[in-house]
C-alpha cells in the first residue's frame, strides 16, 4: 500500500493490551513514574480531591504508548512518520482490563512540501467503553530525513 492508496474512513487496527499489576509496576520502572496512583492500593482507596479510582490504575502514558505502537506499526511499512498524537483519558484502566486501540483516517492533505493524514483515535476496553480518545497526524515525506 502507498500514500496514494489511502482513503478517508479507512481504519487502522491495533493490538489488544492487557495490563497486570506486574506490568503496571514494570511501567513504573520503565517510565520512572512512581506515582502511588499506580502502586499503592491503600492510597487509592481514598479520595484525593474529586478523584477516587478505588485501586491502582494503569498509567495514562501506557495507553499513549499502545496507541503510538499501533500507529507506527502501520506507518513504517508505508514510509510514514508519526508527527503528532493527542489523547484524553476518559476512564481509568485497571489490572485485568483488555484495551484495544483503533484509528480512522479523517483527512488526507497534500501540502507544498509533503503529504499528510489526520486520524481519529479511540481505545476501548473489554466492555466496549471508551477509555481514551484523540487525534493523530502522520507525514508521508517524499524523503525521510531522520
Amino acid at each position: 500500500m502507498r500514500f496514494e492508496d489511502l482513503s478517508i474512513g479507512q481504519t487502522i487496527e491495533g493490538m489488544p493490551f492487557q495490563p497486570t499489576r506486574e506490568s503496571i509496576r514494570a511501567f513504573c520502572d520503565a517510565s520512572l513514574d512512581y506515582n502511588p496512583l499506580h502502586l499503592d492500593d491503600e492510597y487509592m482507596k481514598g479520595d484525593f480531591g474529586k478523584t477516587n479510582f478505588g485501586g491502582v490504575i494503569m498509567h495514562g502514558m501506557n495507553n499513549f504508548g499502545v496507541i503510538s505502537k499501533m500507529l507506527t506499526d502501520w506507518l513504517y511499512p508505508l514510509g510514514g512518520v508519526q508527527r503528532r498524537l493527542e489523547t484524553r483519558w476518559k476512564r481509568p484502566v485497571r489490572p485485568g482490563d483488555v484495551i484495544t486501540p483503533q484509528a480512522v483516517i479523517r483527512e488526507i492533505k497534500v501540502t507544498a512540501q509533503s503529504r499528510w493524514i489526520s486520524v481519529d483515535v479511540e481505545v476501548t476496553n473489554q466492555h466496549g467503553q471508551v477509555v481514551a480518545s484523540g487525534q493523530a497526524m502522520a507525514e508521508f515525506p517524499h524523503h525521510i530525513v531522520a
Partner: protein
Amino acid sequence: MQPTTFETDFWKDANLRKIWDQIVPGEPRKTIPYTLTLQAIHKYCRVVGDMHPLYFDEHYASGTPYAGLIAPPAIHTLLMFACTPANDWMRSPGTVNAGQSWSYNKPARPGDVIRLQARALDKFIRNDRLFVVHDNVFFNQRDEVICSGRGWTIRPQ
C-alpha cells in the same frame, strides 16, 4: 550531570513541591540532562509491547532511512521523569494525567544526551478540579528538537 540513581519514592520531598496555588503559568521548570541508553529504550519498548526491529535490530535499522537504531516516538514518557528533579510538582503523589499532546520532529537515539526545556503553561479550575498545563520541548545534543508537547494534569492540591 546525570544522577546515578532515581528517587522512586514520590512521597519523599513531597513537602518541597509547589501546590496549585504556587504554580505560576510561564515559570520555567528546572530540569536535568539525561543520557538515553539502549537499555532504557528496550525496557520501555517491552512494557508497552512495542518490539519493532527499528528499536531492536541494528542490522535491520541500518538498512532503513533511519540508518540505525532509534527510540519509539513515545519515549518522551521516560524522558519526562528522567529530566525532572525530585522536588518538582510533576512528581506530586496523586497528580492525575488528564491528557497529553505531542509533536515529533527527530527520533531519539541510543546515546543521545537529552535536554528538557519545560514550564508551567496554564492553570484553571474546571468541575471543581485544579488543572495545570505543562509545556515541554526535548532536544538532543545537537540542539535538534526531538519532540515537544504539553500535558493537562489534575493537581492533588
